[in-house]
């Protein structure tokens, strides 16, 4: 809060910046001085005395003095003063001089007397540079002396680089020994035999004489220095005989640099060093003008790997990949944006790691740079994972750690309070200060606070969605913005203790893992449009296309889900809107082709940040265009014009946001820009270099293209590639196919609706053909939701010739779990399949699976004999269509094969799918986005059945005029999932309407209570849990409506005992 209250924060910031500039300037000039090979030591020292004061805070009153080997360099007329800062100059372990900077008068107090802590760093750096310079000079002198003496002696057998060996023997024999040992290794690796013998000598001298006992646990004898020195000489002698001069000199140079950066690897490798110590070392490394590329390959990789481990993850695969692309130098800018508590040992978390690595790969892939173009990453600050611990400790919230072991319903009840407690807690002053500085840099650009959990590394990105990400408008004065930012971070922190991730962890045995969470504070890519802030477009891109709409699209052609505005709408499946789908590998093919389709499946809403109201909002696109469409960035790339019959790219003056005829298509983006090629290159580069399929988030503010996230493309439980069993007995397999398969599983199919292709084709008139569509529509409402498969000829939902496929709309099939198109060969040609084109995007958003079958092709199994001969229950379900009973067949799997269901497993990676009969697993959750609890599956239906029984046991039949109550559907079938409702049939006696109203109210009360209990159990919100169907005496007599379920052949309803009554099985 401190900086929020300071009177003029901007002035302060400016002042700080000026200081940094002065220091940098000073450092550059020192570098210049020391880089002049012709300058004498005298000149250099005098230059330093002149240059240094300009880098300090009060240059006018500042003086500098350099003392080297007794010689003092100082400005004339200098008088001693007590305000002095000193740094010693150490060459090869020996103190050779001192640099002093002082003020002539007393100055205001700062970190070290009147000096800033940055000035301490500055003077130390300069002393180090000077030492380095002196060392080089000494070496040069030695070399020169040696040369002149050689010339004087008239020839010498030793090569000129030997001078380095001599020099080091006298000055730094430790370094020399390290070099010689490396040289021996180097020679051995090059297959030099002599060196191998030398190595044995090294080893023997290490073991001593009693080599028999070398495995003993006693310490090794120390060798005498002389013998080592002799070995050293030998090493270089062998080198001279076997290697070229250039190679030897190159090696020695690199190894000396390695040696110099030893402090960095020491700091990084030392598990005790904190992030800030590492940061200091990196800074020192940077200031020494050492670069990653100057180091030997091994040193380079070792340093990179260590840094990656400390900052990102211990995951070996990640470290292995990342060390090829992440350089030591890359950590320097990163460090500037890391916020951590003092003594931090935290990491940045999965999301941060993924983005950082992807960004380095993109930058370092020159072979793709033409296709990639300029790709940016939004400005990001990182909170290390242990900042969360610091926060908890600072506020004495340690109790929260045990919460995860509570029962889930208790966690769920308590969670809202935890959120409040977190939001009312404060951050430690260091963190507040760092956040405040970060905000100064962000200014008033909107921010997103994203979780970057360490667990993501372990369980994959499926976990990442479980924690919160919050948008911040980041408007108002500094104090308000800082408060809002801290509030958001606290809320993200609280989500570590929210029920959904805890439940997920419990299921996977990860509850005992100590979860820490990093946080990314990222600038939201976008631009102001009216009162809103949004990017021109955003989206996600996948390496593998799991939703192909054409046979020409291959899996590796990738998939883009693209939306206008914030990418939140592209990430999740939507229930009420559609993103635009594109395949980067097949840029010309569109999921929607006719004007009808394009308009129907175009995005209608847009997620934005409302800067005036400071909220995240979803706004209809039409409204946004009406209000401020003229400000929308690159509209010609986002929108097309719809003139009633055509959707086309606007030309010239046509694009008029106020005309109300714009449709979001991204045609301009796809056709007129390099967007598709760029995404394709991005996916290809990252997949190639990371070694796995990726899932990217991106956004564009109208000018620049930003990469927002990169993670392995993974799958929810719904769309993971299913393991296809290989040992299935043939008689259990209904079908097995191997073309155009996407991922997924439909584990518990209870009913198969089969439209026989031959008999359908043989129907004599249009009316009958249409009737088939209506039958399917009725079955769609009667059969258990997401537990039946529709199989039929050719193209479901064909809008042209009805003979090509059953004439249905999406509403006629929207409860199916799987849509199968049977492309039976007719004469010499195989009909094309539709890929569900007519409602493709509806299928995608609802997670309904699609599978084409080509019977008669190689390795394809399609047991149509079973489908034609197994008993059909069509007549029982829709008796009025009995005359179609040989065309439309409804197979109740449980009736045909007692105790079994049809299980469909689909694996897009091997392009294989199989449907076979198996015992139920009870996992009937629809393949929707919402994934809730995965308790032992029997829990859901058992609990429901128990509740239904208890309710019935409380129901007074006379009071409410109820003859009987039955349960059916998923509760009865033991397939209920966490979000299933309880289907009840209530057989009511005729009576006054008031009595029915009473019953309604009574049941509604139960329904609400059960919904609340279910919410506490599973986290799934429903408005009510009971789905009540009333039936009358008349229905029961005529077996109409749901009464057909009583004693039905398929899915028969089960009677429940009422209060004071035995179950009335057959009323």
């Amino acid at each position: 809060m401190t900086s929020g209250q300071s009177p003029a924060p901007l002035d302060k910031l400016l002042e700080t910046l000026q200081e940094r500039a002065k220091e940098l300037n000073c450092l550059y000039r020192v570098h210049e001085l020391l880089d002049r090979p012709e300058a004498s030591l005298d000149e250099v020292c005098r230059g330093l005395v002149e240059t240094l004061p300009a880098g300090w805070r009060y240059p006018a009153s500042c003086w500098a003095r350099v003392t080297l080997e007794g010689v003092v360099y100082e400005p004339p007329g200098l008088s001693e003063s007590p305000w002095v800062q000193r740094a010693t100059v150490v060459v090869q372990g020996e103190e050779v001089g001192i640099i002093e900077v002082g003020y002539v008068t007393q100055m205001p107090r700062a970190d070290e007397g009147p000096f800033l802590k940055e000035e301490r760093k500055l003077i130390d750096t300069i002393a180090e540079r000077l030492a380095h310079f002196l060392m080089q000079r000494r070496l040069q002198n030695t070399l020169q002396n040696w040369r002149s003496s050689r010339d004087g002696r008239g020839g010498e057998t030793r090569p000129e680089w030997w001078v380095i060996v001599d020099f080091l023997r006298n000055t730094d024999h430790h370094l020399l020994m390290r070099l010689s040992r490396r040289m021996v290794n180097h020679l051995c690796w090059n297959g030099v035999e002599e060196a191998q013998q030398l190595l044995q000598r090294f080893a023997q001298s290490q073991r001593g004489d009693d080599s028999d006992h070398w495995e003993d646990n006693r310490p090794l004898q120390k060798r005498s220095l002389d013998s080592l020195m002799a070995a050293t000489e030998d090493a270089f002698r062998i080198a001279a005989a076997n290697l070229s001069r250039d190679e030897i000199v190159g090696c020695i140079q690199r190894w000396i640099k390695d040696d110099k950066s030893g402090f960095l690897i020491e700091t990084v490798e030392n598990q005790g060093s904190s992030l800030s110590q590492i940061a200091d070392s990196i800074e020192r490394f940077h200031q020494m003008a050492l670069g990653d590329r100057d180091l030997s390959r091994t040193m380079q990789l070792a340093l990179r790997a260590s840094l990656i481990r400390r900052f990102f993850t211990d995951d070996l695969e990640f470290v292995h990949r990342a060390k090829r692309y992440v350089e030591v130098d890359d950590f320097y800018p990163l460090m500037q944006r890391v916020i951590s508590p003092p003594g931090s040992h935290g990491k940045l978390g999965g999301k941060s790691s993924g983005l950082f690595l992807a960004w380095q790969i993109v930058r370092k892939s020159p072979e793709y740079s033409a296709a990639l173009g300029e790709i940016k990453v939004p400005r990001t600050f990182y909170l290390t994972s242990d900042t969360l611990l610091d926060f908890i400790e600072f506020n004495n919230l340690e109790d929260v750690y045990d919460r995860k072991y509570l029962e889930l319903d208790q966690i769920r009840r308590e969670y809202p309070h935890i959120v409040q407690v977190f939001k009312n807690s404060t951050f430690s002053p260091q963190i507040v200060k760092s956040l405040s500085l970060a905000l100064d840099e962000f200014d008033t650009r909107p921010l997103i606070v994203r979780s970057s959990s360490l667990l993501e590394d372990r369980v994959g990105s499926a976990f990442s969605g479980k924690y919160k990400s919050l948008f911040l408008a980041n408007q108002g004065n500094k104090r308000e913005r800082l408060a809002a930012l801290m509030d958001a971070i606290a809320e993200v922190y609280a989500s570590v203790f929210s029920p959904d991730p805890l439940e997920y962890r419990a299921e996977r045995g990860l509850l005992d893992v100590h979860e820490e969470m990093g946080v990314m504070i990222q600038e939201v890519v976008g631009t102001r449009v009216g009162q809103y802030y949004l990017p021109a477009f955003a989206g996600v891109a996948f390496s593998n296309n799991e939703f192909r709409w054409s046979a020409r699209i291959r899996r590796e052609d990738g998939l883009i889900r693209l939306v206008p505005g914030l990418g939140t709408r592209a990430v999740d499946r939507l229930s009420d809107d559609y993103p635009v789908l594109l395949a980067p590998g097949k840029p010309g093919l569109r999921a929607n082709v006719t004007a009808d389709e394009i308009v129907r499946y175009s995005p209608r809403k847009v997620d934005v940040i409302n800067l005036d109201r400071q909220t995240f909002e979803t706004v209809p696109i039409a409204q946004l265009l009406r209000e401020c469409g003229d400000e929308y960035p690159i509209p010609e790339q986002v929108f097309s014009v719809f003139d009633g019959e055509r959707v086309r790219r606007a030309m010239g003056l046509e694009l008029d946001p106020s005309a109300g005829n714009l449709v979001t298509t991204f045609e301009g983006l796809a056709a007129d820009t390099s967007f598709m090629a760029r995404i394709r290159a991005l996916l290809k580069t990252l997949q190639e270099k990371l070694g796995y399929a990726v899932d990217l988030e991106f956004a564009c503010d109208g000018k620049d293209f930003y990469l927002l996230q990169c993670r392995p493309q993974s799958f929810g439980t719904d769309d993971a590639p299913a393991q296809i069993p290989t040992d299935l007995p043939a008689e259990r397999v209904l079908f097995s196919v191997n073309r155009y398969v996407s991922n997924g599983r439909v584990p518990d199919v209870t009913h198969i609706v089969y439209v026989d292709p031959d008999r359908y084709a043989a129907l004599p008139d249009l009316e009958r053909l249409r009737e088939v569509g209506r039958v399917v529509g009725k079955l769609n409402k009667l059969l258990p939701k997401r537990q039946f498969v529709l199989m039929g000829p050719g193209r479901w939902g064909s809008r042209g010739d009805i003979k090509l496929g059953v004439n249905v709309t999406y509403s006629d099939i929207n409860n199916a779990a799987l849509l199968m198109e049977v492309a039976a060969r007719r004469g010499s040609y195989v009909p094309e399949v539709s890929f569900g084109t007519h409602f493709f995007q509806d299928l995608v958003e609802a997670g309904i699976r699609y599978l084409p079958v080509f019977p008669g092709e190689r390795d394809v199994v399609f047991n149509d004999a079973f489908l034609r001969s197994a008993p059909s229950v069509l007549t029982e379900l829709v008796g009025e269509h009995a005359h179609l009973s040989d065309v439309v067949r409804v197979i109740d799997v449980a009736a045909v094969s007692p105790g079994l269901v049809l299980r469909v497993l689909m694996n897009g990676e091997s392009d294989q799918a199989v449907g076979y009969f198996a015992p139920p697993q009870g996992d009937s959750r629809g393949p929707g986005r919402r994934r809730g609890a995965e308790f032992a599956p029997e829990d859901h239906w058992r609990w429901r059945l128990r509740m239904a029984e208890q309710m019935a046991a409380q129901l007074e039949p006379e009071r409410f005029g109820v003859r009987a109550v039955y349960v059916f559907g998923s509760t009865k079938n033991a397939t209920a999932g966490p979000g299933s409702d309880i289907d009840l049939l209530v057989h009511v006696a005729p009576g006054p309407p008031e009595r029915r109203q009473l019953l309604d109210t009574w049941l509604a009360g139960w329904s609400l209570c059960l919904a609340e209990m279910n919410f506490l159990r599973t986290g799934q919100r429903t408005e009510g849990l009971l789905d009540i169907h009333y039936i009358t005496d008349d229905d029961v007599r005529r077996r109409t409506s749901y009464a057909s379920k009583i004693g039905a052949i398929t899915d028969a309803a089960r009677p429940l005992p009422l209060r004071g009554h035995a179950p009335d099985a057959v009323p």
Partner: protein
Amino acid sequence: MSAKQFNSFEMAQQQFDRVADLLGLDQPTRELLRVPLREYQFSIPVRMDDGTVRVFRGFRVQHNDARGPSKGGIRFHPLETVDTVRALAMWMTWKCAVVDIPLGGGKGGVVCDPHNLSQREQESICRGWVRQMARNVGPVTDVPAPDVMTTPQHMVWMVDEFETIHGGRYPGFITGKPVGLGGSLGRTEATGYGVVYTIREALKELNVSPGSTSASVQGFGNVAQYAVRLYRQIGGTVVCVSSWDQADQTSYTFRKASGVDPDELVGITDHFGGIDKQKARDLGYEVLPGEAWIAQDVDILIPAALENQVRGDNVGKVSSHVKIVAEGANGPTTPEADKALQARGIFVIPDFLANAGGVTCSYFEQVQSNMNYFWEKDEVLSKLDTKMTSAFAAVSELARRQKLFSRDAAYVISISRVAKACRERGWV
């Protein structure tokens, strides 16, 4: 199996046979009209985006051009068959004849699925189609138009190829072009207005003033919207319209006894004619189940959405007030419901008369293109009125005189007109 299969061309022939019996047509005329005059089947090689070549199958059927150049759409459909194209070509012959425009019937297509094709590949198919057919089509021989999965864009590519081959500008080669590139004004309104012109004429014959009538409309797409507008202009009250709700996957009927205002409804309608339920309630509309439109106590029912909407199972709900059913959509009434309506003496304005405003406007586009002089919208619509009015008069006069059901009368008129042209040319 094949003998019994549903075959749209056989269906069309059966329908023709029945009317031929009514007309007592002679054998050669029957033989001539039962099958198309000419059929073309050809291959269209196309270089695909990936460099490979694929060969597409193209069709053009010219069923009869005794009354004028063939007219009919080009369909892109993955499982197109020549029988479907034949049936549709025959239907075009009758449709042009019933409104008495000097055009014959044709239809064409390409076996392809645009979902599998890029824009460039589709353009190549269009140009390839024209290259194969350039000698057999043209402003005075056969005039194509958009159809299933083809759009004005496809028409522009085709006319451009045709003009390149023939070395001149021939906008009359094809219709359905965008306005400004040989398209006609008034096309948006044509079908809906045409429906109301026929209703107006039917009311005249029933001696009922439009101002005293009310109507219920199924659908709120283009046809329905313009029908509602013109019907209000002539004084009628639209009590309700229905529309499909994408989110709920069902349709609703929006009722306002004092009269539906299309402008206020359009304001709360998406591009697909889906009306916002809540906003409609705020505007004072009752939101009823989708089927409710059929059961309203109105004088006129206008099914203007989908086929198969008035069926045996719901025709009983049609109110006793209803005097006219005007078929704005194609095939909204099933044969079973047709019989029930006929028995109750309800006047059915059959689809291929009621919604012939569209094809008539296509004809106007061709006329304008040929003279390279384009009319104002008012002129188009007033000419449309004249055409529709006289077409209706002829059908209704015949129905009355010969005591035919209106649908049969319409077929009888159109087939006899075509037969007469063939006879006068000396073909039969």
